[in-house]
């Protein structure tokens, strides 16, 4: 059993969304959709829910054809049994919190429906607000009600468009865990749009990178984060160091590259053509004092600190070592190594942390 998607949705002003992928429906699974603003994530979810009609292609859910342009088939949203959370999480303004959550449970018996609603109210910390109208809720409360409303009827496919965007850290973690649990208990499948890296890493086993209406990469979140397939993906997943490089020496399993005025060693094969991008996550750059010798397993680059920017509990350190390199270190390290602009420092990067991306 698989969800097979192969569609093209034309956008009125040029471009369009082109999506081709399939998701197994046999085991509980969360697929995360990740991509810049305007890349077509919401459009894709709306196509799957049956609210937008693709121009070409087909959507199959197991044995059921949901959409087929060539046969002129399009199952109405009611019959797709999906749960959809819109990005702007609209609630029915004339219904209370309780009534909103119970909306999709009309066919359930009364007791079960009430039990379910009760459960969601507790799980999403909405107690005491069950008889309020949406106008009297805060943004985050509204979003949780909308999410509960989408989950309560136990749809087979869950489509969540930025389900945690209005939630604070703690509530977000809690709600995220509930969604995760729900997917496993119900053995459901969920497609979740998110901007949040932590969401993307902790929520799903599968990540789809979408940009300008095209799927750029698909795979395990960790793989994509450390080994983006293209410079574009590297930028999208937030790789801080993406540097144009020139291969100057390629042995069996070592590649030496010229980056700016410096050199970097990577393991693996040299990319064809000699020119490529070097992708290094800032967390993988370690800073040390002193000027130790070069070794084959590690790059040791000496440079001067240009900037120290606190980012949450960590500090982003920008170093000029022939090219501009960004490292992300703890504040403790900053103190211990007395990192400050102008100071000389050695940046250590394991050769295996250097990922090479061929230029297209």
């Amino acid at each position, binding site marked *: 059993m698989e969800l097979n998607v192969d569609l093209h949705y034309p956008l009125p002003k040029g471009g369009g969304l082109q999506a081709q992928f399939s998701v197994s429906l046999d085991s509980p699974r969360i697929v995360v959709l990740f991509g810049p603003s305007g890349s077509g994530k919401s459009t894709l979810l709306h196509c799957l829910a049956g*609210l937008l009609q693709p121009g070409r292609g087909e959507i199959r859910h197991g044995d059921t054809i949901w959409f087929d342009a060539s046969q002129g088939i399009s199952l109405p949203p009611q019959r797709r049994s999906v749960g959809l959370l819109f990005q702007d999480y*609209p609630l*029915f303004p004339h219904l209370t919190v309780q009534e909103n959550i119970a*909306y999709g449970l*009309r066919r359930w018996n009364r007791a079960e429906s009430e039990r379910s609603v009760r459960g969601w109210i507790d799980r999403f910390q909405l107690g005491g607000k069950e008889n309020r109208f949406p106008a009297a809720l805060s943004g985050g409360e509204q979003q949780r009600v909308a999410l509960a409303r989408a989950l309560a009827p136990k749809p087979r496919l869950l489509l969540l468009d930025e389900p945690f965007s209005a939630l604070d850290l703690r509530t977000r973690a809690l709600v995220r865990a509930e969604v995760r649990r729900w997917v496993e208990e119900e053995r459901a499948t969920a497609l979740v749009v998110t901007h949040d890296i932590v969401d993307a890493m902790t929520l799903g086993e599968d990540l789809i990178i979408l940009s300008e209406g095209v799927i750029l990469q698909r795979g395990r979140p960790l793989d994509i984060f450390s080994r983006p397939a293209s410079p574009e993906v590297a930028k999208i997943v937030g790789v801080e160091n993406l540097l144009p490089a020139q291969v100057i020496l390629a042995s069996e399993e070592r590649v030496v590259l010229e980056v700016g005025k410096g050199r970097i060693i990577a393991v693996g094969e040299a990319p064809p053509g000699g020119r490529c991008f070097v992708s290094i996550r800032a967390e993988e750059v370690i800073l040390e004092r002193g000027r130790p010798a070069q070794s084959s397993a590690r790059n040791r680059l000496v440079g001067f600190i240009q900037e120290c920017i606190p980012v949450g509990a960590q500090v982003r350190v920008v170093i000029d070592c022939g090219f501009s390199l960004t490292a992300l270190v703890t504040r403790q390290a900053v103190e211990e190594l007395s990192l400050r602009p102008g100071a000389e420092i050695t940046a250590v990067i394991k050769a295996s942390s250097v990922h090479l991306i061929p230029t297209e």
Partner: protein
Amino acid sequence: MNWEALWLSIELASFTSVLLLFLGIPLAHWIVISRWRWKFLVEAVVALPIVLPPTVLGFYLLMAFGQNSPLGAFYESIAGTTLPFTFGGLLVASILYSLPFAVQPLATAFAGVNPRLVQSSWVLGESRWRTFLRIVLPLSKSGIITAFVLSFAHTLGEFGVVLMVGGNIPGVTRTLSIDLYDQVQALNYRSAGKTALFLLILSFFFLSIVTYMNRKRQGAEGGTER
């Protein structure tokens, strides 16, 4: 005060406006959701009584339902009576005459409901029809009230059609409008004045209560302004 005429008018207006809700709600809904390319023709037909003087309507009714016409003869063979000069005749005329006054505000209200809410309901498994009942209809409450009030009013104020096809029969087709007109034409100013004053006070009282209640209710449901 001619209680019979007052009662008749209220009866006619009530029947008409209630029937028009039943007729107008599905019609307006269809007009809002349909994607049929010739829909605008139907819309035009529904809107026709808007620009047609009531006397045109009265004329057609008289011609169509007189004994000499096939339709009139057919109706008579079934109902045992001709349509003009009966309450039924007035009802038919009123419904035609007030149709757009019900459909127009309904269609405006239905079209004004946020499509996201409608889609949310679809995705939650509710059919178009049940979505209409559970979401569109309750959210169009003020439009429905407007439709009801305007069609009630328009019927109550109906005069031309009643004059043409009513025949001024006490208790059957002599509505308050006609009765008052007769009183004035007969120069019974004193009696006409009494009737008018009574109606004025009654109406004012009734409307004050309705608008006052309406405000109360809104206050209770909407919560504070945020």
